[in-house]
């Protein structure tokens, strides 16, 4: 055994936890039962090794039981089916063995002291048949077959190839080959050649079913053949206490294998393209649904407004503030003059590159559909993923809308705005100074007062004139340059905002859908690894 039992159990337990809500409840119920049974069995520990004689009616289980025990404990009869309840022959201290016997729910108990052929800790069970018309017997057998450590199937020359035994039990106990013994009983009824042929045929049947590791031997309660061999085999198993661990491991292997069957599903997205591509489509659809483009376009207007405000020179700002109340009537007046519809929205230019997009909810649902594994198998992981994706559309759209609304669009202050404002203010002030200077000179001249000759620049142009002219020129140049700069800035701001919005959308998609889907895939991978570990030989 390559996987130690504690590791196997741990892997199986983790797999069971992960399976909850993911694999079919029926299978999980079975797995839980097996786990509980295994836990119970391990809890009783190594005080006893339970060995059972099982088989069809009339194959001589009770005779063999009596022969192994060395005393007539079980009644033997000719009518069929004869044995109605399980009988236990327990070797050792009754107090120590009662727990296991209670758990096995066997009422007919015979205790014996350890001795030759009676190893300490052996609990030998004589089971009823599994193939007669008494269905109550089958239930007892089915329950006990699940609980014993070592199973000895007793067959006879007429029944060794019976379908009820092979199809009903042996074929699904392939993992239990290590703890399965098949005894061809009543071998005294065959000639030596007949017996050899029968044993070969039986071994072939078992090998065909995958049970080549099961032990096969011939016995006869009538002439005592094989009884010693069987007794020795039982003694060895009881002394080594290995059957318990093997039995438990085989149970877990079988159950884990069954659970694994539900997992062999293709999890890749239905379109067959890479997952990243499909995820990109979802984000694209969501961004579209939240109107990221138009929100980003709004940010352009915002940037221009705020930028213009902050980079405005002091004098103009003061004038603006004074003229403020007059602005609205002015604009109305101007519109009345022109009487034309506003131009086909300058901001649509920012929509360049708009891909084709269908109505938002449909696009999102379509993207989710592409992300889901193809339907059809109905196997667990696909079902789980589809469950996450199904109905995620509305939640996503809502959350994305919120995320977009939370994203700040307003630009923070820029240094160049302030520099422009200072520079422009200086120019404005200079021009204003020139104007005032000239005005002062003009006033003096008008009042016929002696006016000082203003200093000249470069010997030609008087300073006030120069200040005014150059100031005005620079004012306009600055104004034009500022507008350009604001446009460029606005464009950049828009790109930044769009990136930010997209990141917000991506975050929502990650949180609501992509993350859970990835997590679910990982869970299934882990589950698969654990189950494989639990099912390993």
């Amino acid at each position, binding site marked *: 055994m390559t996987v130690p039992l504690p590791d196997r159990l741990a892997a199986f337990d983790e797999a069971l936890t992960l399976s909850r809500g993911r694999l079919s409840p029926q299978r999980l119920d079975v797995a839980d039962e097996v786990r509980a049974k295994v836990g119970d069995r391990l809890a009783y520990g190594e005080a006893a090794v339970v060995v059972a004689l099982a088989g069809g009616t009339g194959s001589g289980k009770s005779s063999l039981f009596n022969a192994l025990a060395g005393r007539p404990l079980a009644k033997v009869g000719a009518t069929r089916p004869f044995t109605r309840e399980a009988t236990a022959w327990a070797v050792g201290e009754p107090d120590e063995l009662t727990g296991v016997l209670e758990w096995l729910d066997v009422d007919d108990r015979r205790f014996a002291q350890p001795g030759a052929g009676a190893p300490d800790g052996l609990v030998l069970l004589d089971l009823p048949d599994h193939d007669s*018309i008494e269905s109550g017997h089958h239930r007892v057998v089915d329950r006990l077959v699940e609980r014993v450590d070592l199973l000895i199937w007793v067959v006879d020359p*007429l029944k060794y190839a019976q379908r009820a035994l092979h199809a009903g039990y042996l074929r699904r106990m392939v993992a239990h080959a290590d703890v399965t013994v098949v005894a061809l009983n009543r071998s005294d009824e065959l000639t030596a050649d007949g017996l050899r042929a029968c044993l070969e045929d039986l071994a072939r049947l078992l090998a065909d079913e995958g049970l080549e590791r099961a032990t096969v031997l011939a016995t006869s309660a009538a002439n005592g053949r094989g009884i010693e061999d069987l007794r020795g085999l039982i003694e060895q198993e009881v002394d080594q206490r290995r059957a318990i661990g093997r039995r438990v491991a085989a149970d877990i292997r079988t159950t884990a294998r069954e659970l694994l069957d539900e997992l062999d599903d293709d999890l890749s997205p239905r379109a067959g393209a890479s997952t990243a591509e499909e995820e990109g489509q979802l984000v694209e659809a969501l961004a579209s649904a939240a109107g990221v483009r138009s929100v980003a376009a709004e940010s352009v207007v915002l940037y221009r407004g705020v930028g213009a405000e902050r980079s405005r020179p002091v004098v103009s700002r003061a004038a603006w503030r004074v003229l403020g109340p007059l602005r609205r009537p002015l604009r109305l007046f101007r519109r009345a003059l022109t009487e034309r519809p506003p131009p086909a929205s300058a901001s649509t230019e920012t929509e360049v590159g708009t891909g084709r997009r269908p109505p938002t909810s449909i696009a999102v649902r379509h993207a989710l559909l592409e992300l889901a594994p193809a339907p059809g198998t109905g196997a667990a992981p696909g079902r789980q993923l589809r469950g996450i994706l199904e109905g995620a559309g509305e939640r996503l759209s809502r959350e994305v809308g919120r995320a977009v609304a939370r994203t700040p669009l307003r630009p923070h202050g820029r240094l160049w705005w302030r520099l422009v404002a200072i520079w422009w203010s200086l120019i404005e002030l200079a021009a204003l100074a020139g104007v005032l200077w000239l005005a002062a000179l003009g006033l003096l001249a008008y009042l016929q007062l002696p006016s000082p000759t203003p200093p000249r620049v470069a010997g030609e142009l008087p300073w006030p004139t120069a200040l005014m002219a150059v100031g005005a020129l620079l004012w306009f140049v600055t104004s034009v340059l500022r507008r350009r700069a604001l446009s460029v800035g606005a464009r950049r701001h828009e790109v930044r905002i769009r990136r930010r919005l997209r990141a917000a959308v991506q975050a929502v998609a990650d949180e609501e859908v992509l993350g859970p889907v990835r997590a679910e895939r990982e869970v299934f991978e882990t589950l698969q690894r654990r189950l494989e570990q639990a099912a390993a030989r």
Partner: protein
Amino acid sequence: MSGRTASTSDERTLRGGLTQLAEALREPLFSLSGAARGERVALRDRLVQDVEGHRTRLDDLDAPLLVVLGGVTGAGKSTVANTFVGAPLLRTGVLRPTTSIPTLLAHPDELEEFRGARVLGELARLESEAGTPPTASSSSLWLMATSALPQGLALVDAPDVDSVAVAHRDLADLLLDAADVWVWFTTAGKYADEESMRYLRRASRRRTALAVAITQVRETDRAEIVADFAGKLAAAGLPDLDIHVVPFAPVNDQQVPVSAVATLREWLWSLAEPRARRVHRLQTLWGAVAALPDEVEPLLGALDDELGTAHRLMTVAEEASVDARREFSRALDEGLPLQQEVLARWNRVVGTGRFLALAEGAAGQARSWIRDLMGSTASAEERRVEREVRVEVSDTVVDLVTRLGDLAAAQVAEGWSRESPGQALLSARPDLATKDPGLVAESAAEIEAWQRHVVELVETRGAERKVRARWLSTLINAAATGAIVIALAQTGGLTGAEAGIATAAGAANQTLLVKLLGAANLRWLVSASRSDLQARFDRLMDAERRRYVRAVAEAAPEPDEVDAVREALTALGVGEASEHGPVAPQRGRT
């Protein structure tokens, strides 16, 4: 039997009914049964075979009686048969199961009867010297002549029913169904086996002519075992049945002493007499016919189940179609996201006022005509932009239809894969898991047709206004394009900013159309063209739905298949009309 005539007329009804029933039972294909299909097809084949077997038996009531020796493996069927004929004709052995090819033993004069396909036609015939090891495939029948048997009696040594060899059981079932009389073999160790008792219960249900033999009984246990077995047989519905005991005896030359099988042999030999033959054959036949309604019932249940499945699968397709239509209608209400720059260009073209000028009459037209003559590119630009709008509309709608088709197909696939028949149907028809590949082309054609239809609407509706006469086709097309844009690019449900943009973009277009057509006409035009588009979409989705419905209908059983079977049963006189069917003759016993 009181009179030949009554019985003959009975036989005629029976023959007709059996023929009709066989026909009716052949019909169901069970292609909508998913995982249960194999089982149901096997049941159907089995029933057909059965019914046909009954009919052949009826055709020749005086043929040699077919007695099948059946039972558990190792009961000594072959050994007993060897003992009957007094020669080791059949192979016996310790390996279980021994007999894999059934052997028919008959009087040399009558072996010919069994060479043809009248009885057990499914099995190939083998004939050779006795004792030659059979090597042929297991679905064969070994024929052997032996004058040790009386005329009028044929014994078939059948394979077992309880070993791991499933093929043996199937073969045994075939033989037992064809048999006139069963001799059931079991042993002192196996007489209480469920597997064996199941067959005896069936024999009881069908009132098959039957004898039971229990072998390998030790003298000491004899009384006890026979009493116990009789009790168990009574519980299985077979009281008062004589049990032939074959005591434990040494096997010599693959035979037991004749004395061990004396009572059984005596009984069998008595069956060879023509009257006894007829009585036993009719008993088995009438019993089997009377049991037919119960045996056919699971098949009818399966058919009902399939009809229910078909209904569910169709409902899924129906719902997907309805959902898609609702989605489309909602999308139209919300407005389709046509590309803003295309709309903006269209608006600029409309905003120039040239169309309005054209509508104003001869003067405007003349101006426009002169401008064109002078080499203005305005109208070329108009045509280009208009084409662009039309293409954009077409692309957007086709894209929408395609996506809705994908979603609807996914919805159907998801719904269908919830049950196994749906899964089977999907894997048999993988094309059903996705939308019809032709949907894209079809929807493109539909959109083209729709756009033409809107042009027609403008023409007819515009005629109400007298100006219509003066309109040029350029103007009609432009008005139609404008109406299409308004019909599709509504702004409800968009975010504030987007709505603003869209309104701004649509303003010029709206103004033009109101001026050209009038507000009331425009409203009518928009709603008429929208409902026409919806109708076209509905047709597309209906075609999609029909794909699924057709696939289901092809796989589903015809509703009259059930009726045909019921009618045939009634014709047999064993349907719902008559409770117990014809009165069978007394069960033959020793």
